[in-house]
């Protein structure tokens, strides 16, 4: 039996062959991205097909200005909802340190507002270089589960290079410390 840790650092016992196939497909899709646009499309497909959401925001860490501008979004207007505010300062610090912030209680079904279900740090060289926000879940997706946490971990560890490519290293070199929500 294999043990592994999920994105929250909890021990997960055993593996599920179906989940391994899903993780393998996600990893392959990201790795085979031809360019940044294709990687972004791959990220959208992974979130829609495997995690059950079609409302996504991606924020790029700019340490130079201490801000998190919107890099890309799908299904929502991130500026309108001020998504990162929902994290709060403490939550943002945790995500910047590399922890996923996930609402395991399930989706907001009211439809009246866009509620963030997960914040996933996109990491490169032990630094968070972007934050992925996943919003309302599809009606048939009731809540994230432990397998989803493994997929968040994969995105956190492996999405940076396909998404930001060769810009990753040079960007990090010019970025200083400090960040605000």
């Amino acid at each position, binding site marked *: 039996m294999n043990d592994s840790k999920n994105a929250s650092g909890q021990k997960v016992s055993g593996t599920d062959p179906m989940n391994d196939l899903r993780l393998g497909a996600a990893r392959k899709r990201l790795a085979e991205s031809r360019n940044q646009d294709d990687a972004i499309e791959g990220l959208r497909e992974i979130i829609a*097909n495997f995690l059950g959401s079609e409302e996504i925001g991606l924020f790029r860490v700019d340490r130079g200005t201490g801000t998190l501008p919107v890099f890309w979004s799908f299904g929502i207007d991130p500026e309108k909802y001020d998504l990162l505010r929902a994290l709060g300062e403490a939550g943002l610090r945790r995500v910047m340190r590399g922890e996923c912030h996930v609402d395991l209680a399930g989706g907001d079904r009211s439809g009246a507002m866009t509620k963030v279900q997960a914040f996933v740090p996109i990491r490169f060289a032990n630094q968070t270089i972007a934050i992925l926000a996943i919003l309302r879940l*599809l009606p048939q997706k009731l809540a994230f589960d432990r397998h989803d946490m493994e997929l968040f971990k994969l995105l956190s560890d492996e999405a940076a290079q396909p998404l930001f490519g060769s810009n990753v290293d040079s960007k990090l070199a010019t970025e200083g410390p400090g960040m605000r929500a």
Partner: protein
Amino acid sequence: MAKKILVVDDSKTALMMEREILEKRTTYQCVTAADGQEAVEKAQQEHPDLVLMDVVMPRMNGFEACKMMRQQPSTREIPIVLVTTRGEESYMEAGFQSGCNDYITKPVNGAELVALVQSYLGE
């Protein structure tokens, strides 16, 4: 001879995942198409035992492709399972009106997908 499934989706990720599940967890063989129009053509050429098809696709959507396959004598009897992110009753009803046999929603549960496909094709 292995039974053949035509897997149709414009998402490379979904195609990859569904194909992996079906080929690694069953004995079926998969062929793929990236939209409804290609699916109609491939169904006529490949004579699959089942079609697993996304709904929202460019060129021709899954509902239209399903209707076209039902009009062609060579594809009329092939079981068609639609796969989509839209789970509303009205949407599912539209799927059944187009002629599909079954309907599953994304995110696809691998075990459910295998069980559903096996219910049509046998193990």
